[in-house]
């Protein structure tokens, strides 16, 4: 059974997904970071595939992308690093990246490789639903990869229903009209949006991301959904860290405690 399906079957709340950029802060940190995330108690790992032009990302993730590329990270190298993934990590792992590097690798070859190393799902924010359905869905399905679409506060109800129909795994709720990056507090407007989507009783579970950074925002997001995704704030931890294992553990424990 796909690990994402398994997770959501067993756990219905306070699911924590952690995003990091492959190749950051150092080229060879990938598996070290993933092991530490799992050991600290997070439920899902999202590996960001670095890209030169990440248009949905704020300064923190832009910089981590740049540094990773300067370090020499490529999709090919990432798959090599992940060849031992399933000997070290047992929780669900998702690849998140912009479409161009994936298309250059070749969608079929990419999906095949994902399956081979033990990736469970994909998030490709600039892959339009229409293209996904007409060109790629069959490939995703053939390699048992879950596909997650995003929604935002501006997404119309009808569109959310469509997305729910074609997503499998979970729906990624972008918390506000915004690119990625840590925010101050969750506003009443955001809470109203969380509740509005919750009341739609979608087929898929919902995780809230963008602007979730600490224990209070994780708790608030979790109270209105199945859990949350933390990216930029975690990247900041990695950037400052002199002891990855210790700092990752402290940060994640601080959120889950």
């Amino acid at each position: 059974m796909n690990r994402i399906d398994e997770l959501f079957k067993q756990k219905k709340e306070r699911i924590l997904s952690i995003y990091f950029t492959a190749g950051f802060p150092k080229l060879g940190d990938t598996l070290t970071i993933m092991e530490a995330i799992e050991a600290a108690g997070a439920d899902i790992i999202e590996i960001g595939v670095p890209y030169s032009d990440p248009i949905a990302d704020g300064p923190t993730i832009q910089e981590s992308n740049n540094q990773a590329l300067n370090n020499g990270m490529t999709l090919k190298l990432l798959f090599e690093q992940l060849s031992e993934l399933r000997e070290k990590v047992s929780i669900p792992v998702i690849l998140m990246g912009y479409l161009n590097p994936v298309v250059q690798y070749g969608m079929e070859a990419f999906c095949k490789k994902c399956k081979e190393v033990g990736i469970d799902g994909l998030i490709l924010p600039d892959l339009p639903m229409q293209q996904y359905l007409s060109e790629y869905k069959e490939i995703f399905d053939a390699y048992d990869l879950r596909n997650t679409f995003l929604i935002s506060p501006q997404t119309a109800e009808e569109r959310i229903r469509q997305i729910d129909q074609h997503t499998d795994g979970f729906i990624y709720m972008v918390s506000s009209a915004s690119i990625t990056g840590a925010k101050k507090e969750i506003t009443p407007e955001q809470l109203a949006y969380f509740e509005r989507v919750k009341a739609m009783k979608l087929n898929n579970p919902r995780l809230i991301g963008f602007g979730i950074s600490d224990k209070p925002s994780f708790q608030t997001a979790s109270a209105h959904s199945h859990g949350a995704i933390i990216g930029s704030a975690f990247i900041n931890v990695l950037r400052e860290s002199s002891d990855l294992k210790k700092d990752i553990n402290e940060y994640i424990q601080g959120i889950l405690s």
Partner: protein
Amino acid sequence: MIKVDENGFYGQFGGAYIPEMLYPNIEELRENYELIMESPAFREEFDSLLKDYVGRPTPLFLAKRLSEKYNAKIYLKREDLCHTGAHKINNTVGQIILAKKLNKKRIIAETGAGQHGVATATVCALMGMECTVYMGAVDMERQKPNVERMRILGATVVPANSGSKTLKDATNEAMRQWINNPVDTHYIIGSVVGPHPYPEMVARFQSVISAEMKAQLKEKEGRENPDLVIACVGGGSNAAGAFYHYYNEPSVRLIAVEAAGLGVSSGKSAATTLLGKPGILHGSKTLLMQTEDGQVVEPHSISAGLDYPGIGPVHAHLFESGRGEFVAVEDEHAMQAGIEVSRLEGIIPAIESAHAFSALNQIQYEPTDVIIINLSGRGDKDLDTYIKWGNY
């Protein structure tokens, strides 16, 4: 036939590869732009502003000394005489009226050389709308007068500090700011790039160029169609406008001129059709200069307006289908052509447009041919570059 399909594709190129956060904005535009553009109220306001504010129609000028030198009948479409000094304002006038009809309160734009930024700041001042222009920090340094022009016009100029700090990064930043302000803001893209419907919409606003060419050539030569139309291509908005009404006239050769920079194989070039392969940037599938790993490569051209790693999807399709002929001109040759046009015709062209003139040295044609070169902008903004180059 060169025509966009309902999903925004020209052949295999185009589409709308955007994060879901931008979907409502793009959908709003896609649903409304044709209705608005075709409404009599819009047409009337657009035509009137093009005439009385921009100064259209721009002349079609028979360049006698250039014709003599190159042994053909060469006409210049004088877009350099548009208000603000280039064709860019045709599009910004159209989009600002559209933005008003969509009840938008703020305008954002990206700019490379600053021409599109100035054209946007200009129409925002005209319409009393708030304007923010994103510009690569490197471009802000090398195009200082245009930065100040935008500020004089009341716009806020924000440096893009990511990546190479040039046009590509300014476009990324404008898209991010649109994600952050999805409801009250319209993004005026300056070229035939970006997600559908932008490439087609911008081409239609610029198509006034070839509409006028047809009428003017008919008057002068007794026929609407020249044998060749030559235009430079960065993203490709002036070329799209100059080619638009000739796409489906097979007797008209369409010559698109790219910037070869220091040479196509020098690693410092912007000749996308020679160096690129299909990829996705800024919301559309097009030819794109990129690494094997799919990372976008930094282009180079002496002309900031051609310094872009992609090309409008319609041009990618012109290239792939063979309908367009693509030529790449090196920095040095473009500069020489700029000086030559200055000396022969008393017109200092923008360095972008100088590339189009230089193509005359690379293509075959007959002495009986009628050629229209789209003189997309004037060289005032490039004086520093001409002076630094120095060979005149």
